[in-house]
């Protein structure tokens, strides 16, 4: 039973955590692609930037969460979401819109976003330094230990407060996004523009408004994902480096341009990562007694070492591009 608890803690819980984060990032990548037809490489840095906005606000008001018993960073996150959403619109107006107005090829926008990546990374380091930061300034992280009934399991299932918040938030964000895309006038206009930009323009849809709303959603979700990840672990300026590949892999696995595909892709990539680094020898341990004497089970049996976790989304990306380039949900080919 302890082995099962170990599996839940190391695969189920952490798989859900990284999947939710990748899904929220991938939704942004996929929305930007479906509206503006380019791969936005600066997206992971928007996640980092959003988290640093939260950190900045938390340093200003470290005690604000005490009254209601939630982390201060979480209370301040909505403000940072608005800040990042506006920054994203500002970046678009300053850097991407002039390129679009000149009818450049998508690759020029991609390279442009690479420039924005470097700029954002530089700015973040300039202001916040290069070290790791904890998002908990005046509080401690709540950790819940769920003891299982019965005598077989002696170890508890461990879940932290930010992990729970992350999951609840991700589910809420997905439901809200679904409602927005299928029920609201603007959401439908977004899907229309993704389907057929020329016809959308001919129908009188204001494409500039749709573009601005797309950036706002992408920026807000990026902030939430970056903040909740930093609450769970720590905040580092190079956070984006470990997020960029998984969120692009998730967007492509799900089928670029499909918000629901991005969610599915996030879960595929998130769980593939955790299952690949999981030490499967632990689950085999109970069977040690059944083996003939002298046969030893290995103590360590994982597909890749934890330090090579980042290679997993890379392999998924290559595999999906070779065998099913349109992704699970038949998206556009990048």
């Amino acid at each position, binding site marked *: 039973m302890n082995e099962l608890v170990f599996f839940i803690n190391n695969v189920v819980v952490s798989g859900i955590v990284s999947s939710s984060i990748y899904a929220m990032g991938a939704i942004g990548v996929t929305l930007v692609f479906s509206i503006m037809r380019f791969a936005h490489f600066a997206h992971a840095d928007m996640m980092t930037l959003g988290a640093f906005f939260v950190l900045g606000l938390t340093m200003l008001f470290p005690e604000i969460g005490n009254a209601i018993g939630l982390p201060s960073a979480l209370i301040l996150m909505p403000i940072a979401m608005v800040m990042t959403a506006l920054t994203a619109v500002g970046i678009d107006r300053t850097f991407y819109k002039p390129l679009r107005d000149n009818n450049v090829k998508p690759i020029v926008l991609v390279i442009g976003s690479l420039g924005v990546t470097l700029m954002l990374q530089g700015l973040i380091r300039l202001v916040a330094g290069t070290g790791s930061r904890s998002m908990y300034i005046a509080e401690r992280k709540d950790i819940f230990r769920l003891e299982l009934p019965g005598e077989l399991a002696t170890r508890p299932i461990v879940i932290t407060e930010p992990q729970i918040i992350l999951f609840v938030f991700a589910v809420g964000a997905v439901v809200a996004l679904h409602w927005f895309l299928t029920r609201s*006038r603007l959401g*439908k*206009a977004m*899907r*229309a523009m*993704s*389907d*057929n930009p*020329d*016809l*959308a*323009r*001919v*129908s*009188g*849809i204001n494409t500039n408004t749709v573009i601005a709303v797309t950036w706002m959603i992408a920026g807000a979700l990026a902030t939430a994902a970056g903040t909740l990840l930093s609450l769970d672990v720590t905040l580092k300026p190079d956070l984006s480096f470990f997020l960029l590949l998984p969120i692009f892999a998730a967007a492509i696995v799900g089928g670029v341009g499909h918000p629901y595909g991005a969610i599915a892709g996030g879960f595929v990539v998130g769980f593939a990562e955790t299952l690949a680094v999981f030490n499967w020898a632990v689950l085999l341990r109970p069977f040690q007694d059944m083996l003939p004497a002298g046969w030893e089970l290995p103590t360590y049996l994982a597909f890749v070492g934890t330090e090579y976790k980042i290679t997993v989304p890379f392999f998924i990306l290559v595999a999906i591009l070779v065998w099913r380039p349109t992704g699970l949900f038949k998206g556009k080919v990048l």
Partner: protein
Amino acid sequence: MPLLDAHAVHGGYGGMNILNGVDLSIDAHEIGVIVGPNGAGKSTMLKAIFGLLQVSQGAIRLRGEDITNTAPNKLVQLGMGFVPQEYNIFPSLTVQENLEMGAYIKPRPHDRLIDQIFELFPPLVEKRRQPAGELSGGQRQMVAMGRALMTEPSLLLMDEPTAGLSPMFMNEIFARIKEINAAGVGILMVEQNAKQALEIADKGFVLAAGQNRFTDTGRNLLDDPEVARSFLGG
């Protein structure tokens, strides 16, 4: 005053002139049909009217107002609708959502407008919640026309509305076009099925090499032996 009046229109893509002086005029409540061989500039003329292509010389007027090189979304507000030949629907949106997008610039609710479209195209009613991309060719064409009609235009431009349709659907679409026209919408369309189109046309324009070759009523063009021999296949 004519509803649409184009005079000596020149234009083309990237400096290459396709239109070399096209004259065209239809009155309110009329059906105008542009026919002619491939490469005559039929679709190009339609795009030039709808501001999708730079007009280098000549003038286009809607009810006397100059609309030469006006942006498409502006023209929609002035009461023009356009049904492109291809890519004329939003495939992943449902039929109902396609229609809603057509009326994007109109104040809501759109229920009355949508009901009008369903009255005109009854087969769409039961498909209203289905993605438009899953419909048959004829039904897609109905969605495309329905979307353009949602703004209640006074002039509807259509680029080959029956292209690729089976004869049965073709007759259905022609019948609907007459019905739309009877409701007071002026129509200008490009057609490959020239004979059938000219039969319902008040005015016919036979283009060749970017210029008018014959301009007359639909009936007279059909009866003209020279038009019949050169353009209608004998």
